[in-house]
């Protein structure tokens, strides 16, 4: 069942320096219980796109459609969005310290979400304690009376997850949920999200720059660059047969954990400025395979590869893009 369908989402902001074209036509759909991973570097539009869905991009010019169970999020007024946030869609952000109120007790803040959606204070508190237990916080009754600063980074992120889960939303949007955490804590949090998903059947949109994290949790991956989708595929196809030169470049720039090659293969140059309307393929200036066609218009997503639903916004045929011997498919080796 399709839970969320986003069609041709475009977001731009007017600033003193001119218009920022942050998202320039993004489409995807997400089924219940599945995880969509969105990868991209700074300025790729990955966070703006998802924040806009929740009405969290004040002052933005937005077009397109985002149907959550058939209702268009982009057409809703603030009141309608308010009833959706938390209840239908939970959000988890990178920095749990700035997302929690420093002066309210943690249990109170979790309960607040439920009180706003009609529960009594007592019921809500009881449920908050229960949620803290579910996300693996020891001594939840005691910890519910604690303040955010008394929690470690990993524990705060668990509180955020408890809050996001409070109303059992159908969808959780997690924006870099583990970026500020140590790898050991990151592993705990990713495992927790996965367990929550299997227990509650929640769909997850996970936004990250970390290809390792995305490979672990995502069912499908969207690669964004310069406000557009460059490639979309199931997780295996994306890593085994990446098509778009940008995706390939991204994979080749990671210091491979398994094979310690002598030199990394960075993508030369820097990402594009979004302060102008990009009429060409946004990756063309950094692409070694760029040719005349790439400079005329951004190529539309088209089917590539063997797997159904594997789409790439590159004009070259899969043979032309062909991987060289540094292909990431060689990376699967013995690890610690």
């Amino acid at each position, binding site marked *: 069942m399709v839970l969320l369908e986003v069609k041709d989402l475009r977001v731009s902001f007017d600033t003193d320096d001119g218009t920022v074209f942050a998202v320039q036509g993004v489409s995807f759909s997400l089924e219940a219980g599945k995880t969509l991973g969105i990868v991209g570097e700074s300025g790729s539009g990955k966070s703006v796109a998802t924040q806009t869905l929740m009405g969290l991009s004040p002052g933005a010019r937005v077009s397109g459609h985002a149907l959550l169970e058939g209702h268009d999020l982009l057409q809703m007024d603030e009141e309608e969005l308010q009833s959706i946030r938390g209840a239908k869609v939970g959000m988890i952000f990178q920095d749990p310290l700035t997302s929690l109120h420093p002066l309210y007790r943690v249990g109170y803040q979790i309960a607040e979400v439920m009180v706003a959606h009609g529960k009594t204070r007592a019921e809500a508190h009881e449920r908050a304690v229960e949620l803290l237990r579910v996300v693996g916080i020891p001594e939840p009754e005691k910890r519910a009376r604690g303040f955010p600063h008394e929690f470690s980074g990993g524990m705060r992120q668990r509180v955020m997850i408890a809050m996001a889960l409070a109303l059992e939303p159908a969808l959780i949007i997690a924006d870099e949920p583990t970026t500020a955490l140590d790898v050991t804590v*990151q592993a705990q949090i990713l495992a927790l999200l*996965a367990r929550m998903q299997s227990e509650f059947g929640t769909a997850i949109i996970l936004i990250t720059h970390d290809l390792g994290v995305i*490979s672990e949790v995502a069912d499908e991956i969207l690669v964004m660059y310069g406000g557009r989708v460059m490639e979309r595929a199931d997780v295996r196809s994306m*890593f085994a047969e990446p098509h778009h030169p940008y995706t390939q470049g991204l994979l080749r720039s990671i*210091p491979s954990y*398994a094979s310690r090659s002598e030199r990394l293969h960075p993508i030369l140059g820097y990402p594009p400025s979004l302060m102008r309307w990009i009429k060409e393929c946004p990756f063309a200036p950094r692409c070694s395979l760029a040719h005349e066609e790439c400079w005329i218009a951004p190529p539309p997503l088209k089917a590539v590869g063997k797997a159904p639903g594997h789409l790439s916004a590159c004009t070259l045929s899969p043979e032309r893009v062909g991987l060289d011997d540094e292909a990431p498919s060689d*990376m699967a080796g013995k690890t610690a």
Partner: protein
Amino acid sequence: MNASPLVEEVDVGAQPFLEVANVTKHFPVRSGALGRLSGDQIRAVDGVSFSLKAGETLGLVGESGCGKSTLARLITGLQPVSSGHIRFKGKDIAALSRREMRPLRRAIQMVFQDPYGSLNPRRRVGSILTDPFAVHHVVAREARKKEVQALMGRVGLSSEHYNRFPSEFSGGQRQRIGIARALALRPELIICDEPVSALDVSIQAQIINLLEDLQDDFGLSFMFIAHDLSVVRHVSDRIAVMYLGKLAEIGAVEDVYTRARHPYAASLLSAVPLPQDALRSTPRERVILTGDVPTPIRPPSGCRFHPRCPKAREICAIEEPVLEQKPGDDTGHLTACHFPIEEGEMLARVSRPEPTRKTAVPLGSPEVSP
């Protein structure tokens, strides 16, 4: 030069390039509105010993709060040690006067994580990069601009950037400025504290390549601190794993990454999600540690890792293990553990088969049972 290092030189033969011997750094804990000393101490670095050869890269890894950045600051001489010795080419850094320290400050430089925070936003890049020459009076005033421009060229900036402000640069370019500044005085050792963690993946690779090129060209030694363990593996010759102010394991990078003996080192290395895992038919063995790092104010007794360790036994809470070579390990591969992991042994593990990977993860239990 005082006499003692000379004596040692004779004794030891070729002195190590950098030698860290039983170094500790304790910070007093202040509490209350008046900041009174509470009598407690944060044992940030608590008895660390290792050495570094010229031209070598030592990677230093561990969770936040394990003391790795404090150790870096001690080696650069930015903070004095509480006890122990740091000898750079035979000279004890702690025993030097301010004047004697000056040439050492040139020889040991640092590259920081945040290229935004470490550059003065009101000064032009050219002027920022001229500072090292002016402070140390090493290049004549007239020749400085040319020298700075050559330096900028060396790190991949163009000389037309000379008159720009830091805010006009992207993150990757700012880190190039940070590297140029560290490089200006021809140092011998550069301490890189999370040099690429603020950068995007595609830019990160550019900076790592640059650092490696510079190492080849100038014969630099690096101490490389990063939380990205794949990056550390790529750049390092040897790697040291730190936990709560102590070294848990140290050794050649491939030895530690493929045959970690300390349960903490093994767990830390296995916790990293790898893109290539998506292609594996059988899941990789992984250990998920529970709980958080304990406070360094009152570290656990015995082995500091024992409350989180799947292999811990009675003795681990009583007797602190010594950092030593274990039977079967290569020279220089040292582990501080009473029960090091044996060949083929699996720790209490959480495997993640594809279809069910979203279940069967024991969480919230206070400890992983072996």
